[in-house]
């Protein structure tokens, strides 16, 4: 059955099941947990359907020893907030960059890199953005306790 929902269309294109969540309760229309290989095809499909990137960030789940890389997408015409969650191992967190698909993601990725130490492979620019250029600590990690 054809749908007018751009999110569903985009997800169909990359073969991901569309499971809506309760928007009034959490402010998200759809929440996905994906593998890191899936993010670039999904981003391409979303870009093709007119989505824009809201943010790229991460959550440090130190108890499970993973980083959750978080992507928020939304659509300009319809409210369709999509949250994509990519679990990454904490000790070697590497994630394919979507900076070449959404140029606006570059700054968000740079910020995530410096704050968590997640490396974005193929990001056009990987210098520190907010922290000093020689900062090698990652302040938003839960085990960060300040620099002397």
């Amino acid at each position, binding site marked *: 059955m054809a749908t007018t929902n751009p999110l569903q269309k985009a997800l169909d294109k990359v073969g991901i099941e569309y499971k809506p969540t309760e928007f009034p309760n959490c402010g998200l229309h759809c929440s996905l947990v994906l593998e890191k290989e899936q993010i670039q095809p999904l981003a391409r499909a979303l870009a093709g359907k007119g989505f824009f990137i809201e943010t790229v960030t991460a959550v440090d789940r130190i108890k499970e020893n993973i980083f959750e890389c978080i992507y928020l997408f939304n659509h300009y015409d319809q409210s369709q907030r999509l949250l994509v969650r990519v679990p990454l191992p904490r000790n070697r967190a590497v994630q394919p960059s979507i900076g070449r698909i959404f140029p*606006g993601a570059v*700054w968000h990725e740079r910020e995530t890199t410096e704050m968590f130490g997640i490396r974005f492979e193929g990001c056009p620019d990987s210098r520190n953005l907010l922290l000093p250029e020689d900062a090698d600590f990652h302040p938003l990690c839960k085990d960060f306790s300040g620099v002397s």
Partner: protein
Amino acid sequence: MNRPIQPTYTLDKVGEENFALNLGPQHPGTHGVLRVVLHMDGEYILQADPVLGYGHRMQEKIAENMTYPQALPYVCRMDYLGALSYNLAWVLAVEKLCQFEVPERAEAIRVIATELNRISSHLLWWGAFLLDLGGFTPFLQALTDREQILDLLEEITGSRLTYCYFRFGGLPSDVDEEWLTRVLAFIKEFRDRLPRYHDLVTGNVIFHHRSKDVGVILPFDAAGYGLSGPILRGSGIEFDVRKHEPYSGYDRYDFEVPVDQNGDCLGRYNVRMAEIEQSLRIIEQAIGSIPDGPVRSKVPKLIKAPAGEVAMAVETPRGQLVIYIVSDGSKKPYRVKYRVPSFANLSIFAKMARGQLLADALAILGSLDMVIPEVDR
């Protein structure tokens, strides 16, 4: 005037004749501690590289170490010109997370206060933008009117800039009828004064030449960079969180989302000027239909949010702010992410500044209306 042909930038072109210019961190045109490293060929910019972080305070980490009410004053200090929008976003996000109810009267007052704040922010932008273009009088003309808004807001919130007025479940205190009539009186007076703004600037031929066709953002680029707010609407995309994902009863009011198809500095200017008028309309409607009743619902003193996550989007004067909270069920949020509008809006500057004259680059920077502490957080 014809636009210059854009020189294409390659690294080996930076030779002896070209030089690097440090625009900022202390420069009157950057509106705060922003530094842009410009590679220049005479007056033309070959490449612009914004350097951020001079005002970085690690707001997200601070929020992780604060209880939900404690984080309130911190949130408002990110965007000092639109503090109430931030205040509102934080309050709404936590209310959504904890499922608190908000009385209708409180919602209406929130809308009035936030829209007043939006007008004051746009007025300051108006003056500062003209200051970037070299006009001095508009700045103080705008500040004179903004002062009255600050007086009104000071009366209800107790502070003039970094307001912290909204609380979980409503407001700490009600406003009286007299204040509402004074707001209406201000609106009437301000409507009379608005033509003066247009006479002084909007019709001015010098201003026209400085802003028309300068810093054009194509809708395609706008989407790619995730822009929002007046900058996006200046490029012809009708996206306003107040319409898109209505909050705080914005769906009850009748207002338009001004759009300009040109995508240049003048387009963004027109959008903001039209937005001021729409905000006036919203305030009038909100005051006209304000219900009686309590302004605060019953909220537990110790707020423990249930485990889960929430994303709350709010339209600040600069664009779409998303507060994303991950809660683990304790008194403090596990992770907070502020998706700030200026951050995304500034990221397109490097692309826009390329091939422009220095004077135009500053006009573009001014038209983006960033607040640097918001970008840096």
